[in-house]
């Protein structure tokens, strides 16, 4: 870990939306245009900063970068401790970029001011969660996230919003309460081994020696909180309600980054802090993940509400990510990290487009929609690309993540991978069937006037489509940044538990005149240089 003495970019990244929220709150509520402009500017600044972060991020390095650490509550060893590594960098960037998209892609319709303010608070909370290297600080951000999302669903949602918001809040709170107990106990117990009180996860992970049984209890306390957030079967039932009732921006953000707080938490905290327990509970988590993949897809197939269908597809997709997390191979874990981003992009785009459909038609009922491809061909093409990415067609982003997860899982948990792979059949089934009912056929009278994709909507979707193609064709750009950190994490697990990652040995092949492009040769050299 290297201390960065330059500009505290991460702190600035958290503070920008927070300041934005304050500024927006100060504007008169009779100026919705100004509110929107300010919210967009602040989220634009965060987006620019996150891109700058990505550009200056040193690929090939495993440790935390841009670290910004300041003592906060000294007696308890709590500090303002932010940092990013390969596991979190893309989540931070996605969070930075998703807000302008969500703000531009969907309208509040009423009460613009609190809407924008809550969205900005939410962004600060999510960014903070992904960057915190301090357990307590993480918890604070993790909880902050709940409040704005609760209000976004409860005030700007659809007909059943109050029920959905309350359910979302209470469900997640129960998990969080367990995590709070867990994290305080972790710090207190770790103090015995380390010698002083600290919430710094790196100090705890390297310095503490939990008894096996203790570690397992602590693991569970964290795991339940994250499992609810992911959501992992059987803790998933808040998600369809929350997704269906949330306003479009809420759904996009929920699917895009908030669910990743759960999968990220499992990887960053559970696996990192409790490697022994992670190995111990591995069969359980793998099984729940696989159940989620198949079960989520089956339930998605028979949904009548388009948004609910996409919500259940998230349960299935997130199952893949958890599967890769607990496979304990570098390819599966890298695939999981990548899939967090891929799912955020694809499902985020799906929710945006479903939002556009319900804006136009005032319904999300599949049965009410028909023949949209005939009246809005461009809309249909964009939807098709996003759908194919979600199905996992190679050449698009979703495939790379899923393939890495399954290949890696197959090495250590063969039968789980075999069953999980069947999820790709079901993914094609529920999405194509829904697509057929909504887009194919002859449009009836109500769908005859369906508006084609507007320029603004197209521009909002454009970066997501670009990402879908880029990550599918050249995932190396991402993987080079993700893999070192994932490998370091696995090395930590190996060191603590004596586990050894199986690496298939490549059989040497004698190939006649193996011509390599100059680019490829350069990359090989680069690798050897490391």
């Amino acid at each position, binding site marked *: 870990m290297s201390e960065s003495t330059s500009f505290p970019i991460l702190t600035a990244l958290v503070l920008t939306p927070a300041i934005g929220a304050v500024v927006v709150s100060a504007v008169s509520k009779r100026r919705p245009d100004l509110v929107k402009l300010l919210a967009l500017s602040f989220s634009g600044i965060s987006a620019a900063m996150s891109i700058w972060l990505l550009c200056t991020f040193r690929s090939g390095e495993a440790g935390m970068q841009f670290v910004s650490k300041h003592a906060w509550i000294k007696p308890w060893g709590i500090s303002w401790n932010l940092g990013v590594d390969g596991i979190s960098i893309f989540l931070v960037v996605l969070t930075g970029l998703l807000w302008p998209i969500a703000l531009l892609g969907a309208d509040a319709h009423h009460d613009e001011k609190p809407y924008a303010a809550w969205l900005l608070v939410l962004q600060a909370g999510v960014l903070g969660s992904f960057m915190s290297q301090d357990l307590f600080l993480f918890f604070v951000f993790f909880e902050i996230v709940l409040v704005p999302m609760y209000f976004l669903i*409860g005030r700007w949602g659809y007909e059943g919003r109050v029920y959905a918001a309350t359910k979302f809040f209470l469900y997640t709170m129960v998990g969080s309460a367990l995590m709070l*107990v867990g994290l*305080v106990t972790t710090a207190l117990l770790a103090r015995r081994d380390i010698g002083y009180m600290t919430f710094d996860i790196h100090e705890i992970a390297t310095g503490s020696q939990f008894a096996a049984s203790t570690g397992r209890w602590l693991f569970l306390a964290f795991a339940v909180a994250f499992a609810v957030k992911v959501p992992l079967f059987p803790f998933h039932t808040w998600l369809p309600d929350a997704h269906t009732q949330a306003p479009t921006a809420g759904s996009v953000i929920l699917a895009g980054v908030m669910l990743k707080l759960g999968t990220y938490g499992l990887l960053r905290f559970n696996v990192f802090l409790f490697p022994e327990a992670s190995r111990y509970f591995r069969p359980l988590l793998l099984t729940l993940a696989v159940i989620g993949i198949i079960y989520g897809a089956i339930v998605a197939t028979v949904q009548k509400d388009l948004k609910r269908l996409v919500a259940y597809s998230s349960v299935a997709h997130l199952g893949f990510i958890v599967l890769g997390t607990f496979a304990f191979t570098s390819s599966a874990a890298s695939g999981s990290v990548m899939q967090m981003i891929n799912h955020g992009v694809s499902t985020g785009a799906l929710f945006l487009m479903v939002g556009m459909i319900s804006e136009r038609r005032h319904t999300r009922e599949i049965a009410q929609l028909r023949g949209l491809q005939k009246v809005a061909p461009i809309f249909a093409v964009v939807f*098709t690309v996003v759908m194919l990415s979600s199905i996992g067609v190679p050449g698009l982003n979703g495939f*790379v993540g899923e393939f890495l997860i399954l290949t890696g899982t197959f090495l250590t948990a063969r039968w789980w991978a075999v069953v999980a792979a069947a999820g790709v059949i079901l993914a094609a089934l529920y999405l194509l069937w829904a*697509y*057929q009912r909504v887009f194919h056929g002859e449009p009836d009278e109500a769908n005859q006037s369906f508006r084609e994709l507007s320029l603004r909507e197209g521009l909002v979707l454009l970066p997501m489509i670009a990402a879908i193609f880029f990550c599918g064709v050249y995932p190396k750009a991402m993987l080079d940044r993700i893999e070192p950190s994932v490998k370091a994490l696995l090395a930590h697990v190996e060191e603590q538990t004596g586990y050894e990652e199986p690496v*298939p040995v490549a059989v040497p092949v004698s190939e*006649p005149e193996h011509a390599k492009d100059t680019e490829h040769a350069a990359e090989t050299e680069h690798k050897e240089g490391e």
Partner: protein
Amino acid sequence: MLNVIWLIPLLPLCGFVINVVLGRRLGDPKSGLLAAAMCGAAFIVTLVTYFDLVSRPEEARQHVATIFSWIPVGGLSVDAAFLADPLSITMALFITGIGTLIHLYAVGYMHGDPKFSKFFVYLNLFAFSMLMLVLGENMLVTFLGWEGVGTCSYLLISFWHTRESAATAGKKAFVTNRVGDWGFMIAMFLAFQAVGSLSYSALNSAAMGGTLVRSTATAITMMLFLGACGKSAQLPLYIWLPDAMEGPTPVSALIHAATMVTAGVYLMVRVNPVIATAFTWAPAVIAIVGAATALFAATVAVAQTDIKKVLAYSTVSQLGFMFLAVGSGAYVAAIFHMVTHAFFKALLFLGSGSVIHGMHHEQDMRRMGALRKLMPITAGTFIIGWLAIAGVPPFAGFWSKDEILLAAWAHPTNPALFKVLWGVGLFTALLTAFYMTRQVIMVFFGKARWEDHSGDHGAHGDFKPHESPAIMLLPLVALSGLSIVGGVLNLPFTDSTKRLLHWLEPLVHFGEIEGHASAGEKWGLAVGTAALCLASMGVAIFVYQRNRAQAVEPQILADGWRYDRFVSWFMGHPGRQAFEATAWVDRNIVDGAVNGVATGVRRSGAVLRRTQSGFVRNYALLIGGGVVLMLAWFLLRAVGVFG
């Protein structure tokens, strides 16, 4: 020239991109001609590559061109890389060659369609994907093409998407293929675990070097074969192909006859050392499935009345022949039949398209007849295709089908089983000659039955079938030429005429099984088969032309043994109900438990009811306050006890 093999798939990709951007502006027919030109350019590059390859010594006919590192993680390192060797270039040659002809044909066929340019966008994307499939240096690049052609197939089958049947057929094709893709994926996982790589060279050399464990090789073979069953429409996954005829006819010719559906055969040939390493029952299973599919589909073709459905079942049947060859260890024969089949089946499909075009979208053969005078070129070329597929010497199909039957007959390790399979193959060949004769008579000979129904076409005014434009006839003529002389690729007379065998030898020598048959046996089989096929054609003429006997076309055959209907019923009823039941459990049991707990908590807290003001923000405030209190409590306790 081998260094630029990436140009081969790149050219159609360029056509795709240009047509995406400018297609609407280029319009009809320019966008189509552009697409055809791109495919033609790819053909020329392939041809140059081919000659380059031929000029090299046999052991140097292999070249890998790596473009960039695609997915490098951990032990897994997959390159976006292409492989030029006799097998991949043979495939690329007929894909781009026939592809160009079909592109040209489509310019005429799709003329006037409101989505003209979009059709060529998809067609070029297909050509790109198909070339990725065959030129891929590793299984993952092949899989990219594999899924790519599946996607294009989906898009093109449901091209006329306002038609419910077309939309359903497209979805069915994709989902059924996905079942096979699952097998392909498992095979890749197995291969990676076994040899630490996904490249064919690593896998095959492990198999040839004896380092690939037998059981693993068997598992890989069976899983890849499952994938092949999906893509190449074998039992039990064939059901999507007859429905795929909902797509425009050039699509049926290009994708669902000549190229995409042969991808499974290609894949099996590509990994022939692995099949050879597997337990002997594995290739036997492939041969059995192939023969069973061939027979099954041929029986169904006998009773079809839709001109394209006959050809669709015929394609399923011919693909079965190819898998019979693969299972018999006759990989060269499989590729030989794949190429000749591409010639004559593309010809037959395009011919049927010409008929449909001339008949104003009539596809029912019962409403055709006597068209040879009105469509002389279509009829003439179709008849050549018929003779080729029926196995009449010296047309192309005779030679390749004969090789397959010979391989089954002379199979050395399991003669009893393979003699039975040979019998099945022979009988299928006779059925093929029969149903194709029936089709030719119903369409081109006999009485003109379309006059009887002229009333149905009142809207068109005078209904008169007409010959198609030159741009559609040119490909027909070219393909009929190939269907006549295609056999010269691999004539069995002397060693030097077995060109395809020598060309592919280095790739298949490990897996190829030499049969034991004397020259007399070979001659006897060839002459006997040809004679029986001619007799079978005679029977068909006797029944359908002369009307000397009642045609036997039981309904159960027309319904495809009701297999497809059963699958649809199963998916629609028990399958659907199981899915609904799962959703019910989710709503009422899983979520019910959650709500039950919530209700329980609320009831027990009834005392605090007054605090429920009904305002969301008040609840939130309470919850938020609760969090703070809990937090404080934990912290104070921490300090109090330990601080």
